[in-house]
Protein backbone atom coordinates (compact mmCIF):
# COMPACT_ATOMS: atom_id res chain seq x y z
CA UNK A 1 0.00 0.00 0.00
CA UNK A 2 1.47 3.32 -0.99
CA UNK A 3 -0.75 6.37 -0.66
CA UNK A 4 1.54 8.35 -2.94
CA UNK A 5 0.66 6.29 -6.00
CA UNK A 6 4.01 6.38 -7.78
CA UNK A 7 3.91 6.04 -11.57
CA UNK A 8 7.51 4.81 -11.77
CA UNK A 9 9.40 2.44 -9.48
CA UNK A 10 12.85 3.90 -8.84
CA UNK A 11 16.01 2.61 -7.12
CA UNK A 12 14.85 4.31 -3.99
CA UNK A 13 11.69 2.18 -3.89
CA UNK A 14 13.77 -0.98 -4.19
CA UNK A 15 16.28 -0.17 -1.45
CA UNK A 16 15.86 -1.54 2.05
CA UNK A 17 13.84 0.84 4.28
CA UNK A 18 16.34 0.61 7.13
CA UNK A 19 19.16 1.65 4.80
CA UNK A 20 17.06 4.54 3.55
CA UNK A 21 16.20 5.60 7.07
CA UNK A 22 19.87 5.58 8.07
CA UNK A 23 20.79 7.47 4.94
CA UNK A 24 18.11 10.11 5.44
CA UNK A 25 19.18 10.64 9.03
CA UNK A 26 22.79 11.02 7.86
CA UNK A 27 21.62 13.70 5.39
CA UNK A 28 19.68 15.31 8.21
CA UNK A 29 22.72 15.64 10.37
CA UNK A 30 24.64 17.06 7.45
CA UNK A 31 21.90 19.67 6.97
CA UNK A 32 21.65 20.49 10.68
CA UNK A 33 25.41 21.04 10.88
CA UNK A 34 25.54 23.22 7.76
CA UNK A 35 26.00 26.87 8.65
CA UNK A 36 27.09 28.05 5.21
CA UNK A 37 24.38 29.81 3.23
CA UNK A 38 25.57 28.73 -0.24
CA UNK A 39 25.96 25.09 0.70
CA UNK A 40 22.49 25.19 2.24
CA UNK A 41 20.90 26.70 -0.85
CA UNK A 42 22.48 24.10 -3.11
CA UNK A 43 21.39 21.34 -0.74
CA UNK A 44 17.79 22.55 -0.94
CA UNK A 45 18.03 22.67 -4.73
CA UNK A 46 19.76 19.31 -5.19
CA UNK A 47 17.40 17.41 -2.88
CA UNK A 48 14.36 18.97 -4.50
CA UNK A 49 15.62 17.69 -7.84
CA UNK A 50 16.31 14.27 -6.27
CA UNK A 51 12.77 14.24 -4.92
CA UNK A 52 11.17 14.97 -8.29
CA UNK A 53 13.33 12.34 -10.01
CA UNK A 54 13.47 9.59 -7.39
CA UNK A 55 10.02 9.70 -5.79
CA UNK A 56 8.39 8.32 -8.96
CA UNK A 57 5.37 10.52 -8.21
CA UNK A 58 3.94 12.52 -11.14
CA UNK A 59 5.78 15.86 -11.31
CA UNK A 60 2.59 17.99 -11.15
CA UNK A 61 1.53 16.10 -8.06
CA UNK A 62 4.93 16.74 -6.53
CA UNK A 63 4.46 20.45 -7.22
CA UNK A 64 1.40 20.29 -5.02
CA UNK A 65 3.61 19.06 -2.20
CA UNK A 66 5.91 22.01 -2.67
CA UNK A 67 3.17 24.30 -1.32
CA UNK A 68 3.76 23.22 2.30
CA UNK A 69 7.47 23.72 1.56
CA UNK A 70 6.72 27.33 0.76
CA UNK A 71 4.80 27.74 4.02
CA UNK A 72 7.68 26.15 5.91
CA UNK A 73 10.07 28.50 4.13
CA UNK A 74 8.11 31.61 5.03
CA UNK A 75 7.40 30.69 8.61
CA UNK A 76 10.95 29.63 9.40
CA UNK A 77 12.62 32.57 7.71
CA UNK A 78 10.35 35.52 8.54
CA UNK A 79 10.75 35.44 12.30
CA UNK A 80 14.53 35.35 12.14
CA UNK A 81 14.65 38.03 9.43
CA UNK A 82 12.52 40.47 11.42
CA UNK A 83 13.80 39.82 14.92
CA UNK A 84 17.26 38.35 14.55
CA UNK A 85 20.44 39.78 16.03
CA UNK A 86 22.64 41.73 13.64
CA UNK A 87 24.83 44.81 13.32
CA UNK A 88 24.45 46.15 9.78
CA UNK A 89 21.00 47.65 10.06
CA UNK A 90 18.90 47.72 6.89
CA UNK A 91 15.45 48.69 8.05
CA UNK A 92 13.79 49.42 11.35
CA UNK A 93 10.14 50.02 12.12
CA UNK A 94 8.84 49.71 15.64
CA UNK A 95 9.84 46.33 16.94
CA UNK A 96 10.91 45.03 13.54
CA UNK A 97 14.58 45.28 12.94
CA UNK A 98 15.97 43.79 9.75
CA UNK A 99 19.74 43.67 9.57
CA UNK A 100 21.98 42.16 6.94
CA UNK A 101 22.99 39.29 9.19
CA UNK A 102 19.47 38.48 10.31
CA UNK A 103 18.17 38.65 6.73
CA UNK A 104 20.69 36.11 5.48
CA UNK A 105 20.21 33.95 8.54
CA UNK A 106 16.47 33.95 7.83
CA UNK A 107 17.11 32.99 4.22
CA UNK A 108 19.38 30.22 5.45
CA UNK A 109 16.65 28.88 7.71
CA UNK A 110 14.18 28.92 4.82
CA UNK A 111 16.50 26.85 2.65
CA UNK A 112 17.20 24.59 5.58
CA UNK A 113 13.46 23.97 5.93
CA UNK A 114 13.20 23.06 2.26
CA UNK A 115 16.22 20.75 2.46
CA UNK A 116 14.73 18.98 5.48
CA UNK A 117 11.34 18.61 3.88
CA UNK A 118 12.82 17.22 0.66
CA UNK A 119 14.97 14.72 2.51
CA UNK A 120 12.00 13.60 4.58
CA UNK A 121 9.75 13.20 1.57
CA UNK A 122 12.45 11.15 -0.19
CA UNK A 123 11.86 8.51 2.46
CA UNK A 124 8.12 8.95 2.91
CA UNK A 125 7.16 8.86 -0.77
CA UNK A 126 9.15 5.71 -1.49
CA UNK A 127 8.50 3.58 1.59
CA UNK A 128 5.25 2.03 2.74
CA UNK A 129 4.89 1.90 6.50
CA UNK A 130 4.41 -1.87 6.45
CA UNK A 131 7.77 -2.34 4.73
CA UNK A 132 9.40 0.10 7.10
CA UNK A 133 8.16 -1.62 10.26
CA UNK A 134 8.90 -5.12 8.97
CA UNK A 135 12.46 -4.20 8.21
CA UNK A 136 12.83 -2.34 11.50
CA UNK A 137 11.78 -5.54 13.28
CA UNK A 138 14.12 -7.74 11.30
CA UNK A 139 17.16 -5.55 10.84
CA UNK A 140 17.11 -3.33 13.92
CA UNK A 141 15.40 -5.73 16.35
CA UNK A 142 12.52 -3.39 17.11
CA UNK A 143 10.23 -5.31 19.48
CA UNK A 144 7.27 -6.71 17.51
CA UNK A 145 4.77 -5.22 19.96
CA UNK A 146 5.75 -1.70 18.90
CA UNK A 147 5.88 -2.46 15.21
CA UNK A 148 2.55 -4.26 15.10
CA UNK A 149 0.89 -1.59 17.25
CA UNK A 150 1.93 1.07 14.77
CA UNK A 151 0.85 -0.98 11.78
CA UNK A 152 -2.49 -1.92 13.33
CA UNK A 153 -3.32 1.61 14.36
CA UNK A 154 -2.65 2.95 10.89
CA UNK A 155 -5.34 0.53 9.70
CA UNK A 156 -7.67 1.63 12.49
CA UNK A 157 -7.35 5.30 11.62
CA UNK A 158 -9.90 5.26 8.74
CA UNK A 159 -12.46 3.90 11.22
CA UNK A 160 -11.87 6.91 13.44
CA UNK A 161 -12.63 9.11 10.44
CA UNK A 162 -15.82 7.13 9.78
CA UNK A 163 -16.86 7.62 13.38
CA UNK A 164 -16.22 11.32 13.08
CA UNK A 165 -18.63 11.46 10.12
CA UNK A 166 -21.23 9.44 12.02
CA UNK A 167 -20.88 11.70 15.04
CA UNK A 168 -21.36 14.77 12.89
CA UNK A 169 -24.50 13.31 11.37
CA UNK A 170 -25.80 12.26 14.77
CA UNK A 171 -25.35 15.76 16.14
CA UNK A 172 -27.07 17.21 13.09
CA UNK A 173 -30.06 14.88 13.55
CA UNK A 174 -30.31 15.98 17.16
CA UNK A 175 -30.50 19.56 16.01
CA UNK A 176 -27.24 20.99 17.30
CA UNK A 177 -26.96 24.66 16.41
CA UNK A 178 -24.11 26.28 14.49
CA UNK A 179 -21.14 27.42 16.55
CA UNK A 180 -21.39 30.85 18.16
CA UNK A 181 -18.67 32.24 20.39
CA UNK A 182 -15.53 30.75 21.91
CA UNK A 183 -17.25 28.94 24.77
CA UNK A 184 -19.58 27.26 22.33
CA UNK A 185 -16.60 26.24 20.21
CA UNK A 186 -14.87 24.54 23.15
CA UNK A 187 -18.09 22.71 24.06
CA UNK A 188 -18.53 21.57 20.51
CA UNK A 189 -14.94 20.31 20.30
CA UNK A 190 -15.65 18.28 23.45
CA UNK A 191 -18.75 16.80 21.85
CA UNK A 192 -16.55 15.35 19.12
CA UNK A 193 -13.31 14.58 20.90
CA UNK A 194 -14.62 12.70 23.93
CA UNK A 195 -16.73 10.08 22.09
CA UNK A 196 -14.15 9.67 19.34
CA UNK A 197 -11.32 9.07 21.80
CA UNK A 198 -13.46 6.80 23.98
CA UNK A 199 -14.39 4.71 21.00
CA UNK A 200 -10.77 4.58 19.80
CA UNK A 201 -9.62 3.37 23.20
CA UNK A 202 -12.30 0.67 23.26
CA UNK A 203 -11.46 -0.48 19.77
CA UNK A 204 -7.71 -0.42 20.33
CA UNK A 205 -8.15 -2.45 23.50
CA UNK A 206 -10.26 -5.06 21.74
CA UNK A 207 -7.88 -5.36 18.82
CA UNK A 208 -4.92 -5.60 21.19
CA UNK A 209 -6.54 -8.45 23.13
CA UNK A 210 -7.02 -10.36 19.87
CA UNK A 211 -3.45 -9.60 18.79
CA UNK A 212 -2.01 -10.74 22.11
CA UNK A 213 -3.99 -13.99 21.82
CA UNK A 214 -2.31 -14.54 18.47
CA UNK A 215 1.14 -13.79 19.88
CA UNK A 216 1.68 -10.63 17.88
CA UNK A 217 3.49 -9.18 20.88
CA UNK A 218 6.28 -11.74 20.44
CA UNK A 219 6.98 -11.97 24.17
CA UNK A 220 7.13 -15.73 24.41
CA UNK A 221 9.06 -16.78 21.34
CA UNK A 222 12.68 -15.81 20.82
CA UNK A 223 13.05 -16.66 17.13
CA UNK A 224 10.14 -15.83 14.90
CA UNK A 225 9.50 -15.76 11.19
CA UNK A 226 8.04 -12.87 9.23
CA UNK A 227 5.52 -12.77 6.44
CA UNK A 228 7.56 -10.21 4.53
CA UNK A 229 11.28 -10.98 4.73
CA UNK A 230 13.47 -7.90 4.59
CA UNK A 231 16.78 -8.20 2.75
CA UNK A 232 19.66 -5.99 1.71
CA UNK A 233 20.34 -5.75 -2.00
CA UNK A 234 22.62 -3.98 -4.50
CA UNK A 235 20.05 -1.18 -4.71
CA UNK A 236 21.08 -0.16 -1.20
CA UNK A 237 24.60 0.53 -2.41
CA UNK A 238 23.31 2.32 -5.50
CA UNK A 239 21.09 4.58 -3.42
CA UNK A 240 23.85 5.32 -0.92
CA UNK A 241 26.14 6.22 -3.82
CA UNK A 242 23.52 8.33 -5.51
CA UNK A 243 22.57 10.44 -2.49
CA UNK A 244 26.20 10.80 -1.39
CA UNK A 245 26.97 12.05 -4.90
CA UNK A 246 24.08 14.50 -4.65
CA UNK A 247 25.42 15.88 -1.37
CA UNK A 248 28.93 16.16 -2.88
CA UNK A 249 27.46 17.98 -5.88
CA UNK A 250 25.89 20.54 -3.55
CA UNK A 251 29.18 20.98 -1.67
CA UNK A 252 31.26 21.40 -4.82
CA UNK A 253 28.74 23.75 -6.40
CA UNK A 254 28.75 25.90 -3.27
CA UNK A 255 32.54 26.08 -3.51
CA UNK A 256 32.72 27.00 -7.19
CA UNK A 257 29.55 29.01 -7.79
CA UNK A 258 28.72 30.79 -4.55
CA UNK A 259 25.66 33.06 -4.81
CA UNK A 260 26.02 34.89 -1.58
CA UNK A 261 29.55 34.13 -0.47
CA UNK A 262 29.05 35.17 3.14
CA UNK A 263 30.02 31.91 4.84
CA UNK A 264 28.79 31.21 8.35
CA UNK A 265 25.39 32.76 9.11
CA UNK A 266 25.50 32.45 12.89
CA UNK A 267 25.89 35.56 15.04
CA UNK A 268 29.55 36.00 16.06
Amino acid at each position, binding site marked *: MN*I*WNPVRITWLHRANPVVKLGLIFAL*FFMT*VLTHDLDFMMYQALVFMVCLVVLSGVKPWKMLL*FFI*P*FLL*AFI*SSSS*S*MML*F*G*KGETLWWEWG*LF*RVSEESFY*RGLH*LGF*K*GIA*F*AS*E*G*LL*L*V*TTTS*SVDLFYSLMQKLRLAP*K*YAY*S*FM*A*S*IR*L*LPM*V*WEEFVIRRQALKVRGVRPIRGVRNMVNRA*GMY*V*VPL*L*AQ*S*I*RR*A*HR*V*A*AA*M*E*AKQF*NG*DQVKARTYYYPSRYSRYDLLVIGLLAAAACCAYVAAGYFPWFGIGDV*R*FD
Partner: protein
Amino acid sequence: MGTSMQEKLGVQPRRGLRLSDILVTVLVSLVFGVIYHFWGSVYNLFKPLFFEADELLYGMWFAAATLAYLLIRKPGVAIIAEVAAAHVEVLFGSGWGLTLLLYGLIQGLGAELVFAAFRYRSTSAWTLVIAGAGAAIGSMMMDFYYSYTDDLQTWMFLAKYGMRVISGAVIAGLLMLLLAKALDRTGVTSLLRPASKKDYEALDDARHV
Protein backbone atom coordinates in the same frame (compact mmCIF):
# COMPACT_ATOMS: atom_id res chain seq x y z
CA MET B 1 -12.38 -8.55 29.73
CA GLY B 2 -8.68 -7.87 29.33
CA THR B 3 -7.68 -9.48 32.60
CA SER B 4 -9.64 -12.69 32.17
CA MET B 5 -8.14 -13.08 28.72
CA GLN B 6 -4.66 -12.77 30.18
CA GLU B 7 -5.37 -15.33 32.85
CA LYS B 8 -6.67 -17.80 30.30
CA LEU B 9 -3.53 -17.36 28.24
CA GLY B 10 -1.32 -17.63 31.29
CA VAL B 11 0.32 -14.29 30.57
CA GLN B 12 1.81 -12.86 33.74
CA PRO B 13 1.07 -9.20 34.33
CA ARG B 14 4.34 -7.34 33.99
CA ARG B 15 5.62 -3.93 34.89
CA GLY B 16 6.57 -3.05 31.32
CA LEU B 17 4.34 -1.97 28.51
CA ARG B 18 2.02 -4.57 27.05
CA LEU B 19 0.84 -4.62 23.48
CA SER B 20 -2.56 -3.28 24.52
CA ASP B 21 -0.96 -0.32 26.30
CA ILE B 22 1.09 0.48 23.24
CA LEU B 23 -1.80 0.06 20.82
CA VAL B 24 -4.07 2.33 22.86
CA THR B 25 -1.30 4.92 23.18
CA VAL B 26 -0.51 4.79 19.49
CA LEU B 27 -4.11 4.97 18.32
CA VAL B 28 -4.94 7.86 20.64
CA SER B 29 -1.82 9.65 19.42
CA LEU B 30 -2.72 8.96 15.83
CA VAL B 31 -6.06 10.65 16.44
CA PHE B 32 -4.06 13.52 17.87
CA GLY B 33 -1.79 13.41 14.86
CA VAL B 34 -4.81 14.04 12.66
CA ILE B 35 -5.93 16.84 14.98
CA TYR B 36 -2.40 18.30 14.73
CA HIS B 37 -2.67 18.24 11.00
CA PHE B 38 -5.79 20.42 11.13
CA TRP B 39 -4.47 22.39 14.07
CA GLY B 40 -1.77 23.55 11.68
CA SER B 41 -4.36 25.63 9.85
CA VAL B 42 -5.78 27.12 13.06
CA TYR B 43 -2.19 27.88 14.01
CA ASN B 44 -1.65 29.70 10.73
CA LEU B 45 -4.87 31.71 11.29
CA PHE B 46 -3.44 32.98 14.55
CA LYS B 47 -0.27 34.23 12.91
CA PRO B 48 -1.49 37.58 11.59
CA LEU B 49 -3.03 38.46 14.99
CA PHE B 50 0.28 39.67 16.32
CA PHE B 51 3.71 38.36 15.64
CA GLU B 52 4.47 34.93 17.11
CA ALA B 53 0.91 34.76 18.49
CA ASP B 54 0.90 31.25 17.07
CA GLU B 55 3.17 30.26 19.95
CA LEU B 56 0.09 30.51 22.19
CA LEU B 57 -1.32 27.47 20.41
CA TYR B 58 1.92 25.53 20.41
CA GLY B 59 0.94 23.48 23.46
CA MET B 60 -1.45 21.41 21.39
CA TRP B 61 1.61 19.68 19.95
CA PHE B 62 2.49 18.28 23.37
CA ALA B 63 -1.03 17.14 24.21
CA ALA B 64 -0.62 13.54 23.03
CA ALA B 65 2.16 12.95 25.57
CA THR B 66 0.24 14.13 28.61
CA LEU B 67 -3.07 12.53 27.64
CA ALA B 68 -1.39 9.18 26.94
CA TYR B 69 0.26 9.35 30.34
CA LEU B 70 -3.06 10.13 32.03
CA LEU B 71 -4.60 7.10 30.35
CA ILE B 72 -1.84 4.50 30.74
CA ARG B 73 0.40 5.83 33.55
CA LYS B 74 3.41 3.73 32.68
CA PRO B 75 7.00 4.63 31.83
CA GLY B 76 7.61 5.33 28.18
CA VAL B 77 4.11 6.16 26.98
CA ALA B 78 4.71 9.91 26.73
CA ILE B 79 7.62 9.38 24.34
CA ILE B 80 5.77 6.76 22.28
CA ALA B 81 2.73 9.03 22.07
CA GLU B 82 4.67 12.01 20.75
CA VAL B 83 6.63 9.92 18.26
CA ALA B 84 3.42 8.24 17.03
CA ALA B 85 1.67 11.58 16.59
CA ALA B 86 4.66 12.99 14.71
CA HIS B 87 4.77 9.85 12.59
CA VAL B 88 1.23 10.46 11.28
CA GLU B 89 2.10 13.99 10.35
CA VAL B 90 5.15 12.74 8.48
CA LEU B 91 3.00 10.18 6.66
CA PHE B 92 0.67 12.96 5.54
CA GLY B 93 3.64 14.62 3.91
CA SER B 94 4.09 17.58 6.19
CA GLY B 95 6.37 20.36 5.00
CA TRP B 96 8.54 19.81 8.07
CA GLY B 97 9.68 16.33 7.09
CA LEU B 98 11.37 13.94 9.45
CA THR B 99 12.46 16.71 11.79
CA LEU B 100 9.02 16.24 13.29
CA LEU B 101 10.07 12.80 14.51
CA LEU B 102 13.06 14.29 16.28
CA TYR B 103 10.87 17.04 17.72
CA GLY B 104 8.36 14.42 18.83
CA LEU B 105 11.08 12.41 20.50
CA ILE B 106 12.55 15.29 22.44
CA GLN B 107 9.16 16.80 23.40
CA GLY B 108 8.03 13.40 24.63
CA LEU B 109 11.28 13.10 26.55
CA GLY B 110 10.68 16.50 28.17
CA ALA B 111 7.29 15.38 29.47
CA GLU B 112 8.54 11.90 30.31
CA LEU B 113 11.34 13.20 32.54
CA VAL B 114 8.80 15.17 34.57
CA PHE B 115 6.57 12.13 35.01
CA ALA B 116 9.61 10.03 35.93
CA ALA B 117 10.57 12.63 38.54
CA PHE B 118 7.17 11.99 40.13
CA ARG B 119 7.77 8.23 39.73
CA TYR B 120 4.74 7.88 37.44
CA ARG B 121 2.38 8.21 40.36
CA SER B 122 1.20 11.77 40.39
CA THR B 123 -1.64 12.94 38.16
CA SER B 124 -2.19 16.23 39.93
CA ALA B 125 -2.75 19.42 37.97
CA TRP B 126 0.70 20.70 38.97
CA THR B 127 2.50 17.63 37.65
CA LEU B 128 0.72 18.03 34.33
CA VAL B 129 1.43 21.74 34.15
CA ILE B 130 5.12 21.03 34.74
CA ALA B 131 5.09 18.20 32.21
CA GLY B 132 3.51 20.45 29.57
CA ALA B 133 6.16 23.05 30.27
CA GLY B 134 8.81 20.31 30.17
CA ALA B 135 7.74 19.32 26.68
CA ALA B 136 7.91 22.99 25.65
CA ILE B 137 11.46 23.20 26.96
CA GLY B 138 12.30 20.03 25.02
CA SER B 139 11.10 21.66 21.82
CA MET B 140 13.12 24.75 22.67
CA MET B 141 16.32 22.67 22.87
CA MET B 142 15.58 21.32 19.42
CA ASP B 143 15.00 24.85 18.12
CA PHE B 144 18.50 25.91 19.19
CA TYR B 145 19.99 23.45 16.75
CA TYR B 146 17.34 23.68 14.12
CA SER B 147 16.73 27.38 13.81
CA TYR B 148 19.40 29.27 15.80
CA THR B 149 16.80 30.78 18.10
CA ASP B 150 19.53 31.89 20.46
CA ASP B 151 20.36 34.41 17.74
CA LEU B 152 16.98 36.10 18.12
CA GLN B 153 16.93 39.39 19.99
CA THR B 154 16.62 38.69 23.69
CA TRP B 155 13.13 40.11 24.27
CA MET B 156 11.83 38.19 21.27
CA PHE B 157 13.42 34.99 22.53
CA LEU B 158 11.80 35.42 25.94
CA ALA B 159 8.40 36.34 24.48
CA LYS B 160 8.42 33.40 22.07
CA TYR B 161 9.39 30.75 24.58
CA GLY B 162 7.43 32.30 27.43
CA MET B 163 4.28 31.98 25.36
CA ARG B 164 5.22 28.46 24.36
CA VAL B 165 5.82 27.29 27.93
CA ILE B 166 2.53 28.83 29.09
CA SER B 167 0.72 27.28 26.18
CA GLY B 168 2.28 23.90 26.94
CA ALA B 169 1.22 24.17 30.57
CA VAL B 170 -2.36 25.22 29.79
CA ILE B 171 -3.22 23.16 26.71
CA ALA B 172 -1.08 20.06 27.26
CA GLY B 173 -1.41 20.22 31.03
CA LEU B 174 -4.77 21.53 32.24
CA LEU B 175 -6.89 21.00 29.14
CA MET B 176 -5.75 17.38 28.82
CA LEU B 177 -6.48 16.80 32.50
CA LEU B 178 -10.05 17.96 31.85
CA LEU B 179 -10.25 15.72 28.78
CA ALA B 180 -8.93 12.74 30.74
CA LYS B 181 -11.57 13.38 33.42
CA ALA B 182 -14.27 13.49 30.75
CA LEU B 183 -12.96 10.19 29.41
CA ASP B 184 -13.01 8.74 32.93
CA ARG B 185 -16.69 9.59 33.14
CA THR B 186 -17.40 7.59 29.96
CA GLY B 187 -15.93 4.55 31.71
CA VAL B 188 -13.49 3.49 29.01
CA THR B 189 -10.47 4.10 31.18
CA SER B 190 -11.56 1.21 33.42
CA LEU B 191 -10.43 -1.02 30.53
CA LEU B 192 -6.91 0.25 30.98
CA ARG B 193 -6.77 0.49 34.74
CA PRO B 194 -6.69 -3.09 36.12
CA ALA B 195 -3.23 -3.77 34.76
CA SER B 196 -1.81 -0.48 35.92
CA LYS B 197 -3.15 -0.88 39.46
CA LYS B 198 -1.32 -4.17 39.76
CA ASP B 199 1.79 -2.53 38.43
CA TYR B 200 1.69 0.05 41.14
CA GLU B 201 1.29 -2.58 43.83
CA ALA B 202 4.28 -4.36 42.38
CA LEU B 203 6.23 -1.11 42.52
CA ASP B 204 5.28 -0.63 46.16
CA ASP B 205 6.23 -4.19 47.08
CA ALA B 206 9.23 -4.13 49.40
CA ARG B 207 10.87 -7.07 47.65
CA HIS B 208 11.20 -5.16 44.41
CA VAL B 209 12.53 -1.91 45.75
